[in-house]
């Protein structure tokens, strides 16, 4: 194994990891530590926070401070970490259910406050860990064990929600687009403020099987074929409706919360002097 990879992994008897064969979450872990490596991030200064779900198992394998919190609660826990140790690079990784169902309110309020966090949403279109139920990102009509007749609900547009909540950065990528993914993760991790990366990821065991999408390879082929990079779109009107846009969809600046808080502390103390 390459040293730079080994450096960021907790290589012990828990490997091979618990994820299913062909699960995209492993690829995400793989690319994530490569991003750390390329950004030269000191692993002593990274805190990786997750909730509960298959995606939330990633931190346990990565060699930095890692925080496996309750289902849906990664973001408030991460806020506690960040406010207590503002110098840490605090990264949240979690599933579409974890962050967008039970944890949605935390996500939006953290974006509103613009706290310096990077949230990586592993969108595998369903609840993997509990065995394949509908999630806020399950597309309409798709099958899961709790939508046996096809999902009635409209899925979330994570980008729209992130933007209106106040995130300063949003990018989408997939487990097929590994170099692209690395690039947008790098960008997200260098932003100061609330940044979001949505990664489409295959769950062949459940979502793939229930919707007859084939194995991991077929699902990755689909990611390849159905996506279109934002940089290739010239006119907003020209995106075919069956395409998913990837790339950096949002990139802006806004004052970060910890910095504001620090400024407040200074102002109070100056006043008192």
């Amino acid at each position, binding site marked *: 194994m390459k040293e730079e990879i080994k450096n960021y992994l*907790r290589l012990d008897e*828990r490997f091979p990891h618990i994820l299913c064969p062909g699960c995209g979450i492993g690829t995400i872990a793989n690319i994530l530590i490569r991003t750390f490596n390329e950004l030269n991030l000191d*692993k*002593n*200064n990274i*805190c990786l*926070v997750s909730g*509960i779900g298959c995606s939330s198992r990633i*931190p*346990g394998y990565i*060699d*930095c*401070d*890692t*925080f*496996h*919190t*309750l289902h849906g*609660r990664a*973001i*408030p*826990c*991460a*806020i*506690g*970490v*960040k*406010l*207590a*140790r503002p*110098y*840490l690079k605090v990264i949240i990784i979690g599933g579409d259910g974890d962050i967008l169902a039970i944890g949605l*309110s*935390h996500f939006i*309020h953290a974006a509103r406050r613009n706290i310096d966090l990077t949230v990586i949403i592993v969108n595998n279109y369903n609840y993997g860990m509990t065995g394949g139920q509908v999630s806020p990102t399950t597309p309409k009509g798709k099958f899961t064990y709790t939508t046996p007749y096809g999902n009635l609900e409209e899925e979330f547009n994570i980008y729209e929600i992130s933007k209106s909540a106040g995130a300063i950065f949003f990018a989408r990528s997939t487990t097929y687009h590994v170099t692209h993914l690395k690039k947008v993760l790098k960008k997200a991790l260098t932003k100061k403020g609330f940044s979001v990366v949505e990664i489409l990821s295959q769950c062949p065991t459940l979502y793939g099987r229930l919707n007859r999408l084939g194995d991991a390879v077929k699902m990755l082929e689909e990611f390849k074929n159905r996506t279109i990079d934002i940089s290739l779109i010239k006119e907003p009107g020209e995106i075919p409706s069956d395409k998913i846009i990837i790339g950096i969809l949002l990139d802006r600046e806004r004052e970060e919360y910890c910095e504001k*808080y620090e400024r*407040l*502390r200074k102002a*109070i*103390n100056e006043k*008192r002097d």
Partner: protein
Amino acid sequence: MRQLLSGNEATAIGAIKAGIRFFAGYPITPSTEIAEYMARELPKIGGVFIQMEDEIASINAVIGASASGMKAMTATSGPGFSLMQEGIGYACMAEIPCLIVNVQRGGPATGLPTKPSQSDVMQTRWGTHGDHPIVVFYPYNVLESFYLTVKAINTAYFLRVPVILLTDEIIAHMREAVELPEEVEIYQPKRKKKSPEEFLYYSEETIYDSEVAYFGEGYRIHISGLTHREDGFPTNKPEVIKRKLDRLKRKIEDNKEKLWDLEYQDIGAEVCLISYGISARTALEAKYIFEKEEKRALGYIRLKTIWPFPDKPLRALLKSAKKVIVVEMNQGQLINEIERAISPEIEIIGVQRYDGEIITPEEILAVI
């Protein structure tokens, strides 16, 4: 310096004196003044106050801050306390110290937001799922609100557990003239001496007063709410799980004597009042009225430690009692524990009230 303070203010001051630098909370009557105090004071001393979007976010932010080495707390009342239960369980399991203040009001549900009650006593013990011993202190005046807050925080860090300070609307809002100390003794957790490679998130060798490392210190720790091993990583191994859960239990079992705190008077008397918090003040009043009128002593025991339940000291104190009167503002909660703890020969009567009004001395005198 003598000051006029409310119980909530005294708690907030005590918390800061004991080292609290992080407060995340959500307003709720009758606890809100604690948050408001913290909002004013924490930024002055390098601390952080944040009002979160709800109580669930609050307890989890507290957990995150504490795991990062900032002493952390929250304050709430019944409805918010119910919402925090899952998080409290996490703090137990992951061994993250923190202080949770529950200023009780009438329940269940929205209940009686502005009236006193003592009806969350059992919930503090059994509110979260799973096996989870807990430490709960309950002050009965403003000064004690200060001191028990300090004790609660020190205990939390000594045992690496969440500790609950239980109070009630009266104790929280009542103002009294008190003299607070400039400094208090603060327990400082042993800092890790081992190298990150050797360091364990917890070690089976030291169940309390143990070495700790926080996020951001280069120890690359892993914290999890799954059953886990000494290094923090999940396990399904029965023997490891048993040791872990026994450890959670033993933290508190082994330190019972230290944690137990009772106040008592005239325990030689035939009849003894047992109470806590606001109701204990009524009990004391009743005691003095009784003694003045009847010219004989009335026993009195007040629990400052609610959990671990002080069964042994109670048993010892009540050796010669014939009758015990348990005074509490609920439908009968701690009386059940007392019943189990003391000799079956002793008659037990409960004086209970749960209509939003505090118990009067007359109600106690009527059953002696």
